């Protein structure tokens, strides 16, 4: 079954959770696609729907408490429509996930090796001895020294960075075509983070998988991603190549994220430029553009921001922006106001 190109296509994905307080629209009309060998960075603050999206792609939402609609086409199979058994057989083999906290994602009672062996044998009809050899091989490839000895260690005997390496080994053990990493380095120290980011980049080249990296850290995105999707309140507000997003961002929210972050590669700015207010509740998403109550440029839309949901429209080649401001106006604000402020030191 040759995978058609692009390998992953998400179309109008909606994931809603009915609760006593109302309907939580965690993901509300998300579309994107991804080829093999490419890395997509999904950026957003907590509650923007980035993790819910990744669980949706893995088919991990319980249909009893989540309403999933839209299409997630992975190599031709629609994960939203497929029966749970089909999705289960794909999970681990065709798509795999690296979680944020390896200590809680691994079982404390089983050795690291046993957990990799289990994942491998679920999808491959091989003997325990062969699977064990494969587990040792995988641990060696993710840079665990003395893998043949460490394979029999328990997760608590590994350090944080080693655990994350072991989890990457587990995720890659069945050679998945799609790898989703949800905040893979947030729990790690910065020197360990650098090691893990390098490792993920090397392994992706080696395995030629499609990689989705979910993070709130724009630095991590700039290190890994080819394309970037910025999420706000369950919707994509800006999408483009990493170079475009970092050098010619056009959505005020993306500007806000860039201004909120002190940067080591530039001089010290006098003040940070935060986004006013707080992220919205997903039960009562603001009418119109969800970002309008926090947006400094909302008055320029002439009331449109508060009344109408803006469409995601093309602002350049492969560059999509969901904003009411006219494209040339946005470009002018970025060049004349926002960029000089960000670069001022």
């Amino acid at each position: 079954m040759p995978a058609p190109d692009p390998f992953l296509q998400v179309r109008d994905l909606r994931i809603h959770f009915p609760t006593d307080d109302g309907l939580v629209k965690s993901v509300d009309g998300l579309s994107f696609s991804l080829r093999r060998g490419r890395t997509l960075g999904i950026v957003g603050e907590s509650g923007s729907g980035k993790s819910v999206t990744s669980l949706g792609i893995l088919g991990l939402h319980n249909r009893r408490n989540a309403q999933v609609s839209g299409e997630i086409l992975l190599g031709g199979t629609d994960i939203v429509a497929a029966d749970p058994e089909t999705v289960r057989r794909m999970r681990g083999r065709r798509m795999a996930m690296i979680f944020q906290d390896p200590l809680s994602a691994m079982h404390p009672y089983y050795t690291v090796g046993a957990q990799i062996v289990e994942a491998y044998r679920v999808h491959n009809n091989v003997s325990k001895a062969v699977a064990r050899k494969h587990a040792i091989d995988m641990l060696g490839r993710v840079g665990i020294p003395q893998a043949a000895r460490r394979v029999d260690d328990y997760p608590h005997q590994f350090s944080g960075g080693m655990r994350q390496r072991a989890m990457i080994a587990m995720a890659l053990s069945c050679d998945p075509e799609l790898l989703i990493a949800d905040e893979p380095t947030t729990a790690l120290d910065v020197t360990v983070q650098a090691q893990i980011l390098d490792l993920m980049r090397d392994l992706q080249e080696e395995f030629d998988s499609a990689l989705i990296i979910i993070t709130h850290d724009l630095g991590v995105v700039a290190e890994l991603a080819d394309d970037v999707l910025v999420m706000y309140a369950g919707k994509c507000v800006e999408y483009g190549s990493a170079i475009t997003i970092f050098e010619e961002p056009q959505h005020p929210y993306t500007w806000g994220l860039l201004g909120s972050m002190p940067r080591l590669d530039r001089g010290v700015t006098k003040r940070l430029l935060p986004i006013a207010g707080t992220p919205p509740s997903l039960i009562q998403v603001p009418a119109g553009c969800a970002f309008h109550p926090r947006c400094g440029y909302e008055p320029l839309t002439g009331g449109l921001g508060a009344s109408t949901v803006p469409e995601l429209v093309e602002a350049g080649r492969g560059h999509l922006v969901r904003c009411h401001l006219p494209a040339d106006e946005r470009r002018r604000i970025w060049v004349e106001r926002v960029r000089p402020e960000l670069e001022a030191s």
Partner: protein
Amino acid sequence: MTEPLLSVRDLRKHFPITKGLFKRQVAAVRAVDGIDFDVYKGETLGLVGESGCGKSTTGRLITRLAEPTGGRIVFEGHDITHIGQGAMRPLRRDMQMIFQDPYSSLNPRHTVGSIVGAPFRIQGVRTERGIKREVQDLLTLVGLNPEHYNRYPHEFSGGQRQRIGIARTLALKPKLIVADEPVSALDVSIQAQVVNLLEDLQEELGLTYVVIAHDLSVVRHISDRVAVMYLGKIVEIADRDNLYAHPRHPYTVALMSAVPVPDPRRRAAKRRERVLLTGDVPSPIDPPSGCRFRTRCWKAQDVCATEEPPLVERPGDMAGHQTACHFPVADDEEVAGRRVPTPRAG
């Protein structure tokens, strides 16, 4: 310079590891193992390091939430190293702490008014216009609505909760504030709001901060001076601009090169320049002899294993730039791209 507000000399904190029925001490976690620094009035000292380096323990020692094992802490001329709780209480007015997690540092059963007003009641401070008015002024000062006086912490977002914690800290007009990871639990856009608030308050009220954080970019933004810690020791301390422009200790160099930079064009270059440390931080129970960083250092020689390098100013460096290293990194030194050989475990 003038007299320091806070002066720390050879400060140590060892947590005993006991064994058996009689709790015989078999070893100790040397969380903080002999550090010296001064904090001057009106400045911000940043303490950076990776998890387990002792930075939070240092914060708890100087606010005397933990009992030091050795050394001296002098605050405004008073030796507070071993004074008891009762004697410490009046000093707590002058020395307050901001905690990392705004969810666990506010009592969920108390209203905001009661949380922010607690310092007045505990310290028996008489206010001219009543506690309620004072609390409402404090809420306004940190950017909250004073009418939310009767609300409970769960009604606020993470960033607002952190502001409540800051209001409580400010209640008695302290001279020194120790902030332990004040923004790391917050969303990026909220982090910037709280960092700006801390800076505004410092300017307005003449506060002195010790900011403990693992994020090197945040520390650079907020600090006047920065101390880098590794395994219970300060390995380098200097003026902020000086430290970031001319790092001397190999660990500082490695730490800075590891920070991801939000510039996709520099990705390849950044990777070449990165000094990749291999292995993990050794155990603080049995730290390496001599220089503690030597097991991961690419410049280590025999002397590093036998002699512990003192934290001193090096010839040619700016005044106040102290480094604890036998072979400090020079400005134009070729360290880029070098991969350090895998060190022994433990």
